[in-house]
């Protein structure tokens, strides 16, 4: 059962520079993919959570690699568009900071790109508290990116509380994945 329910986060549709409303900021599709190999673990949790499909495997499928400056390219270059948190935590781990530094350097290279950071929580909290907790997580990521030199006006934050889980199971691995802040390129940039 569990092996068949690997969750695959399909990356954002590439968005052109001119374009979009905040409403369409996050398009996540999940589907069981039995054939996906055991993924790489990039997690502070001791227990091995199942990661969204590593970009390294997706890359060869795209002949030229993602178009520079696009949302796909952001994820490709940053290595990870989500960073993860401990239970009821919003502090950044050293590992998390490394990922965010990659995000920040991309944002500096494509310095007219705009991103939104969605803060998420696992299901083991009540709805309103988790909205507040998700906001804390999104803001912690924003504050770090700003500390790396990204202009605050290029980053908006939103909290989804526990409303946007990426893993629907109820176990430690799923909860660890669902406690995250998700950086999404709203408007692509040019270098």
């Amino acid at each position, binding site marked *: 059962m569990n092996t068949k329910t690997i969750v695959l986060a399909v990356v954002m549709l590439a968005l052109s520079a001119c374009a979009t409303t905040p409403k369409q900021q996050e398009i996540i599709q*999940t589907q069981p993919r039995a054939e996906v190999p055991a993924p790489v673990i990039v997690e502070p949790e001791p227990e091995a959570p199942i990661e969204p499909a590593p970009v390294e495997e997706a890359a060869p499928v795209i002949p030229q690699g993602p178009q520079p400056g696009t949302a796909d390219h952001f994820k490709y270059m940053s290595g990870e568009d989500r960073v993860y948190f401990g239970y009821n935590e*919003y502090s950044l781990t050293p590992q998390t900071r490394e990922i965010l530094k990659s995000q920040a350097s991309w944002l500096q290279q494509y310095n007219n790109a705009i991103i939104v950071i969605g803060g998420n929580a696992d299901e083991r909290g009540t709805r*309103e*508290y988790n909205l507040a907790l998700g906001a*804390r997580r999104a803001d912690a990521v924003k504050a770090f990116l700003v500390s790396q030199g990204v202009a605050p006006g290029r980053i908006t*934050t*939103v909290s989804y509380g526990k409303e946007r889980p990426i893993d629907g199971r109820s176990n430690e691995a799923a909860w660890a994945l669902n406690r995250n802040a998700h950086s999404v390129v709203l408007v692509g940039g040019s270098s």
Partner: protein
Amino acid sequence: MNTAREFTGASSFYGGLSQVMKFLLLTVALIMGMFVSFQARAQLEIDIVHGAPEPLPVAIPDFLSSHPETDQIAKDIASVIAADLERSGLFRVLDKSMYIEKQTDINYQPSFADWRLINAKALLSGKIVREGSNRLKVEFRLWDIYGTEQLDGKRLATTPDNWRRIAHKISDNIYKRLTGEGGYFDSRIVYISESGPKTNRRKRLAIMDADGDNPQYLLAGADLVLTPRFSPTAQTITYLSWETGRSQVYLLDIETGRRELLGNFPNMTISPRFSPDGRKLIFSMIKKGNSDIYVFDLRSRSTTRLTTNQAIDVSPSFSPDGRKVVFNSDRGGSPQLYTMNADGSNVRRLSFGAGRYTAPAWSPRGDLIAFTKSNKGKFHIGVINAKDGKGERLLTNSYLDEGPTWSPNGRVILFTREGRGISGRSAIWSVDLTGRNLRKVPTPGAASDPAWSPILP
């Protein structure tokens, strides 16, 4: 919407009883009285304040119908009342096949002996009179079988399509007459209708009658709407929607469909609730990741900040006198309940038990605060004394229970219960203050975030 009109028609009821019949019935009653202990004459009453009473056995025959077109409604009204009373946990409706007496006119006293034989303590008899094609009069009488007296009698008028509300109003009358407290049957529940898997869930605003009947969507389009709450004074609800990209508080007049974005703040706003007088909204606004509690005056359009703490401050709920607010904060290191004055002064911690306390709701009676507690991997709906935080009682226990909302009379709590894992679905459940009357509220699909309306006018 049609509003049921109510008359207290006592004089016409008594006028229908002829002097001869009165004499005969009195005689029968006296004869039967010889076989019954007179202590049974103490007036019929259900004590819901002290502990959990045994359900009261009550007989509810089909209402009498004076026209073929009302025959079905006459049966249905009796069924809806029976279901209302049973759901409260305070009544046991006796099976119709047991009934010995078949009344043909509710203006005569029932044969108390026949109802005693099947152990009925109370009898509800009613009739429907059709007045033209678009108007019904519904009369009912509530009898104390052992006290051999009428406890209540009223006549209500409405249009035929509004018969369910008449049934709920009669249920409320019976509840009030027998418990001494207001009922909650003629009310509605606003909630979130859910569809899709956990990782791609659609959440829409919906409303239904308190018994789960008549469910309807209230908004088209939006796919993430949360935490609706009723105004205590108007047919208005407040809720959260992400349609601008971030969570914001909205108001919706459910009679006119008029919608309003509250204040148009540049920040996320969450956890809205009305003040008891319906004139203000209390909610949390999030600035730079930090949530604090604010009040918005719906007339002056002014916003007042109540908390300035660097911790999470959410889920405010006014006391029924409007003087105090209970809210949720992690300022002490873990999520706990706090109270403060309505101006933000005098903050005090209220919950001290083990575990995390969230989502408080102040009872409309003022005496208790309901909350969600998570401890050792389980979630509970519980209550504590509003005054001192003592007297904790946990009413439920499951993988995930949350978000209590009170019935208008402060005796029943609705909440969300969500199942574990990928196939886990949300549903609305009810529990009374004894914790023994736990029931799932029927909804067409998965449902969450219930909020009870006041009793309808």
